[in-house]
């Protein structure tokens, strides 16, 4: 994969969040498709990030509702990733690391560190607030960039089901956040 395409992939990742507000038509027409191998990698990375955060929550939180939410995150995101891996094998594509997944990982590592030092109710609130924000970002990327770009029908279908799932997670997190405030 060449450098310019990488750069555009990053732009796409960021644009997807901004797309909710406004986007220059020029940026849309210029946007080439991010490839399936990169999409698979981004989705896998995004899932792993949420699983890692949930595992941290299961170590730190004593709030039953927060723990139930975290268990659901581990279970559902692991299921998506198992499916993604099966699909990647079947399609014989090698997931490609790319700037979008790299920046996702970087951001997540920083967030984990921030959360690590919090305790009790402050931790619960911060974890859940971050889950709301994180699912919003991932859902915007899925609907704005990844789903439209996916070429393989099975990958597209997995992403679409994933979007429905993560929208449920976002709602669940938002509900939990209201409870904790």
């Amino acid at each position, binding site marked *: 994969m060449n450098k310019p395409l990488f750069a555009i992939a990053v732009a796409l990742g960021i644009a997807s969040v901004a797309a909710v507000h406004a986007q220059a038509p020029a940026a849309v027409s210029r946007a080439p498709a991010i490839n399936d191998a990169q999409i698979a990698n981004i989705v896998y990375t995004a899932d792993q990030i949420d699983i890692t955060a949930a595992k941290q929550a299961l170590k730190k939180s004593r709030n039953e509702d927060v723990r139930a939410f975290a268990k659901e995150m581990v279970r559902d995101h692991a299921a998506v990733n198992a499916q993604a891996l099966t699909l990647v094998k079947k399609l014989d594509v090698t997931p490609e690391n790319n700037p979008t997944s790299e920046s996702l990982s970087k951001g997540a590592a920083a967030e984990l560190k921030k959360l690590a030092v919090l305790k009790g109710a402050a931790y619960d609130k911060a974890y859940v607030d971050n889950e709301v924000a994180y699912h919003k970002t991932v859902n915007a990327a899925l609907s704005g960039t990844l789903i439209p770009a996916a070429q393989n029908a099975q990958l597209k279908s997995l992403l679409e089901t994933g979007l429905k799932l993560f929208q449920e997670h976002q709602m*669940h997190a938002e509900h939990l956040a209201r409870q904790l405030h």
Partner: protein
Amino acid sequence: MFRTMILIASLALAGGSLPASAATKAAQHATAPAHVVHVIVIDKMQYGPMPTDVHAGDIIEWVNHDIFEHSATARDGRFDVDLKPGATVRMTTVAGTTAFFCKFHPGMTGTLVVK
């Protein structure tokens, strides 16, 4: 779903794995009226079409085609069926209209009407 789809009373209790000949026999010898099995499929984060013409005592077979765990949980508490990925779970109906949802993904909803 058609009422003729599966017609059994005791077969359902036996776990549905009897050979066809045994099933026929069981149906013939059943003294209670045959209860129909209605299938509700869950796929891609939603409940499939609701069966019509469901009568009290009929069986609902929940089939989870998703890779995610779901549930069919009645708002009034009359049933709460846990559905692991790929699971098939049966329950016997009672008369009434019941709104239900998934405990894990509450945006998933449905209404079951039993006469």
